[in-house]
């Protein structure tokens, strides 16, 4: 199993004023991640088939994305997908 990879990490801009809301966007991947999709079908004795909606499960997905800053600020996760986490915090 391999460690995940941070492909990019960026602030919303290069300079913030104290108290201004900062944005931190972290893009990450994991080569071990497997996304398993399952679709169940049921066939009766006449051969008729019903197909259910697919279900998806992520194996070895990112369990946590944790930013720690100097000086310290309280980052809030405002949006997240499998490959991207977006945080905001007031500039110190």
């Amino acid at each position: 199993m391999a460690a995940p990879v941070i492909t990019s990490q960026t602030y919303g801009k290069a300079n913030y004023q104290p108290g201004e809301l900062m944005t931190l966007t972290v893009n990450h991947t994991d080569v071990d991640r497997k996304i398993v999709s399952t679709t169940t079908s049921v066939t009766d004795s006449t051969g008729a088939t019903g197909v259910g909606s697919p279900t998806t499960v992520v194996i070895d997905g990112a369990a946590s994305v944790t930013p720690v800053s100097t000086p310290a600020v309280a980052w809030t996760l405002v949006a997240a997908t499998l490959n991207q986490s977006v945080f905001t915090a007031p500039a110190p």
Partner: protein
Amino acid sequence: MLFSTTTTVTDAGGHSTSATVTCTVGSGVPTEAEIATWGATTTTITSNTTYSSTTGQTVTGVHFDGARVSFTGTDITLVDCVITGDNSASPLVSVTNTAARRIKLVRCVLRPKYPRPETDGIRGQNFIMEDCLIENTTDGVSLVKSGYTSAQAGYATGVELHRVVVRNLARWTGTPPWAGHPTDTVTHNDCFVQVGGSGTVLDRVLFDARPALQYGHVLLQSAAGVVYTRAQAYALADTAARISVPIGSQPGGWPVVAPWVSNGTGKWSTGEMSGTDFSCMMILSSQGPSTDFTVTGCEFHGGENMINGGGNPWVTGAHMGTWTDNRCDRSQANQGSGGNDTNTYRFSGNWASHITFPLTGPGANTYLDGATMTGVQF
């Protein structure tokens, strides 16, 4: 203040990785406390000095007292030096020799010992400045290519300014033609002037194009005719009257004319003394178009037109580059409608679709208080 964040991503199997990113909080431009540490000198040189012979040479901690520095070699670095120039029309630092390349000044102070109306801070191309102060000069940084021919239009300037401060420009008066100007009665001062070329980088620079007080031919006095000390002049209230000593009243007959033209606002904060023809950046095209700037995180004060690109009209195929996260005050002498409609960024011609210049959103260029700017002209 540098602000760094280390993010750790951990997967369900307990594997993790981390990465760090840094930005600045606050303006990012140098603070007075930082500036005070630049130019710590240990050795004094009092003769004119040309650094030419040693490729890769680094010179540290030298006070060029009454001496200027002219580079004629490559890969030469000055660190923590003070350069005051000689008593000539030459700039304090010259990088005009065509053999001078990759010159670097770090934590240096350029401040003239002999006040003269021709004295510029640094002139030439192919140089990098990091954490440097230029003050009391006529122009601060002058980008010009020696021996330019029209076939070289669009040349790479090779100039990068990182956290450079240019301020307290020296205002002089005279009867034309004179050393300060061929046709005008006052000097035309620019923190930065570029006459052509491409690729100049301005990174977190602080350009203050308001004239130095109690220096050169700007000498303020009270209504009762008492000349202020420098500290008193800078401590005047925003709305206090700025009264010049009378024309011809000083030894040698200066000021020859009124050293500035009131713009009618009566306030230091709205550019009362910032004309005529000061600028933070004067962008010209006498050596082909000036293009492809990177100007980011900078702070600008004053100027008649703060960024004056009127002499650099757009030409087919040209791009002005990327201008982001810059901030400015409202002390431009040229106030469009008075007080809050300042002539800030003035480009000439059809640059609007040939420049990256956000006014809102990420990277927006704003006033110091974050307000959306007025008076931007493409």
